[in-house]
């Protein structure tokens, strides 16, 4: 696996950044060229040494160059945030990053401020948004105009809408149309939507790239279409999985739970399925670039993911390494074991692998996710909150292991 470059400073000096034929390229391409030259000058020097993804240089600045085309222009941003699920943390990070960049941010969480859901992360940390100067409100997205008190915004980011219109089984808080309609009528200049990479049609040729066929009936697809028809400046972002402090949904924790208790980790299928797990700071940085570069971002779809895929087995191993513990992986066939893989395992039992090519090409975005390092930090927090000591049941795991005649630890 990629290891960290131990001393990148000596590499920086060796070859001068290449000159660019600036005149002939539009800004977005120009910028991505120059940033790649910067990175590639790190690469060229010693191919025999164990060069790795220069994670240290990536972490120092979110983008290897700065796109400050509109740095002076501060925006009034409304984030409509879901009140649960895997995406909630995106709004939390984004709010803080935008506030840090000097923008005005209101985050509207759907539902009731006093509901039990608000006791969970990231909502129980919303004081961090407030102390950074942001505004937090709650309400029904169908009433968004009232909820935000009649204020107008430059940018609306919808991190909640799942269906354009009511779907019988879905709760109405995921309706998107009212938010889009209100934004349009109130003169919002840029509409951003958090969609899902889950809408890509599975195919023989990974990865999913922007432009690939999507499932036409998917709710998110209808929303994307509606937005593209109603806003001249719109963009849609398709995420997969994410890790990061404040996440509302288990990701790495699922592995840690088993690893620290010395339980086997049951993985469906071969374990070679690819998935994409990004640190949420990468998602936030991509969205921030879009807010700060609306012209470049306009009318585009972006895969909101890291630039590396990891196999399911690989993720288990990385979690174990981060924990400094061994891991026993057990593969099983869900059908043969008589269980629903969706309930048994937090990732899709298939290749589910998108790449963030549009963001790199168009926004000059760079991924900083470094799972081996990031998971160490996640494990530290896992232990800090005492989850390693928490009593847990593993009924589905036990059922799987029994079907395989694998001994269950006492």
């Amino acid at each position: 696996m990629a290891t960290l470059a131990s001393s990148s400073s000596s590499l920086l000096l060796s070859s001068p950044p290449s000159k660019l034929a600036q005149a002939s390229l539009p800004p977005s391409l120009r910028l991505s060229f120059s940033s790649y030259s910067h990175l590639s000058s790190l690469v060229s020097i010693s191919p025999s040494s164990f060069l790795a993804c220069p994670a240290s240089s990536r972490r120092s600045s979110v983008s290897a160059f700065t796109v400050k085309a509109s740095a002076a222009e501060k925006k009034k941003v409304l984030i409509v945030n879901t009140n649960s699920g895997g995406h909630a943390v995106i709004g939390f990070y984004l709010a803080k990053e935008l506030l840090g960049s000097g923008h005005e941010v209101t985050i509207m969480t759907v539902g009731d401020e006093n509901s039990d859901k608000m006791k969970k992360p990231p909502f129980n940390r919303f004081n961090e948004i407030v102390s950074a100067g942001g505004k937090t409100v709650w309400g029904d997205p169908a009433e968004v105009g009232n909820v935000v008190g009649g204020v107008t915004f430059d940018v609306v980011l919808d991190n909640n809408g799942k269906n354009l219109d009511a779907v019988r089984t879905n709760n109405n808080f995921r309706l998107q149309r009212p938010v889009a309609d209100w934004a349009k009528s109130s003169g919002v200049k840029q509409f951003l939507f958090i969609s899902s990479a889950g809408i890509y049609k599975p195919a023989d040729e990974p990865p999913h790239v922007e432009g690939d066929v999507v499932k036409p009936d998917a709710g998110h697809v209808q929303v994307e279409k509606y937005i593209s028809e109603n806003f001249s400046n719109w963009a849609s972002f398709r995420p997969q999985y994410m890790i990061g402090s404040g996440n509302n949904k288990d990701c790495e924790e699922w592995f840690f739970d088993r690893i620290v208790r010395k339980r086997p980790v049951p993985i469906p299928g071969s374990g070679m399925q690819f998935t994409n797990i990004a640190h949420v700071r990468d998602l936030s940085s991509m969205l921030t670039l879009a807010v700060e570069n609306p012209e470049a971002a306009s009318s585009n779809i972006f895969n909101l993911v890291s630039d590396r895929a990891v196999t399911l087995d690989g993720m288990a191993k990385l979690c174990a390494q981060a924990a400094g513990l061994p891991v026993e992986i057990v593969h099983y066939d869900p059908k043969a074991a008589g269980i629903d893989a969706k309930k048994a395992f937090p990732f899709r039992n298939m290749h589910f692998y998108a790449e963030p090519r549009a963001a790199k090409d168009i926004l000059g975005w760079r991924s900083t996710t470094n799972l081996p390092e990031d998971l160490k930090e996640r494990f530290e927090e896992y232990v800090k909150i005492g989850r390693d000591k928490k009593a847990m049941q593993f009924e589905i795991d036990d059922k799987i292991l029994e079907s395989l005649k694998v001994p269950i630890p006492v």
Partner: protein
Amino acid sequence: MASMVVVQHQTQPSFSTLTSSLSDFNGTRIHSQIQYRRKVLQPKVGLQVTASSEKNILIMGGTRFIGVFLSRLLVKEGHQVTLFTRGKAPIAQQLPGESDEEFAEFSSKILHLKGDRKDYDFVKSSLSAKGFDVVYDINGREADEVEPILDALPNLEQFIYCSSAGVYLKSDLLPHCETDAVDPKSRHKGKLNTESVLESKGVNWTSLRPVYIYGPLNYNPVEEWFFHRLKAGRPIPIPGSGIQVTQLGHVKDLARAFVQVLGNEKASRQVFNISGEKYVTFDGLARACAKAAGFPEPELVHYNPKEFDFGKKKAFPFRDQHFFASVEKAKHVLGWKPEFDLVEGLADSYNLDFGRGTYRKEADFSTDDMILGKKLVLQA
């Protein structure tokens, strides 16, 4: 020196791509990915390399696969091209689909320097006598082979090397990027050592790392392996789950990349992965070969390779693991982009080679029969 290569494709890659499968969809422009562009036989240069001065180019090798296409592109660009080979194969052979005129033009211009590259003294003396501006090393395997070339040509403008993505250390985090860790113990360590020597000598070098190369005249039975089975109407035995992800790159796209780094400042002392833009699973590749060649969807048979002893024979043409590399650096830095998508590229290979009755290796179904025989026994 060639001036900066202008990005050849549209300058605003607007990914406003909502699928046209939505029946009531209208409005947003669909961005058609260049990979779906129909590719014509002719190796199209398509570059806007402005007034590239004519170079005196030496290709080590050049009569087998990559070099066959590369040499043609270079000759068309107006360079003087010499092939260093032992002379075992003719210096110029007409390509399938190549017109008589084109071939006559090429064969009248291509030059030959006959010798054995392992004879270092000869390499040094013959190269120094002739003097070359640029060397393409397409068939070098070991670092030792490069030294006499560099010694012979102290004023060499550029040394362009065909390396391999096989140098990357196996990882659970993919795709392989040029910055990733390499494996000093890999089967391709000679390539790695060569890259190191190039760097240490201070010459202006460029290294391209292909993954699996395919296309007409392929001597490595990659697509041919599938075509033999499809033609024979046989099931395709695939090790393991069949979801292993690999990557194929068309030889013509690789040849274009080799041309694009010539005299290119941005390629100076750089490594680039060159392959297809999309990857493919083993199962998917079997299906793509069938589709490209016009065969019905094949029956795939999965087996556990550990249950068999195939001896020295290879039961499957790919390493049994995930193996693919990102070509984003070449795309961003060089403005290079593969012209073939997988099915198109396989069709090109089939139509110009296997489909005409030509191939390099005879079909050998002995390992298939071992696998299928055991499967039948289990089912009985």
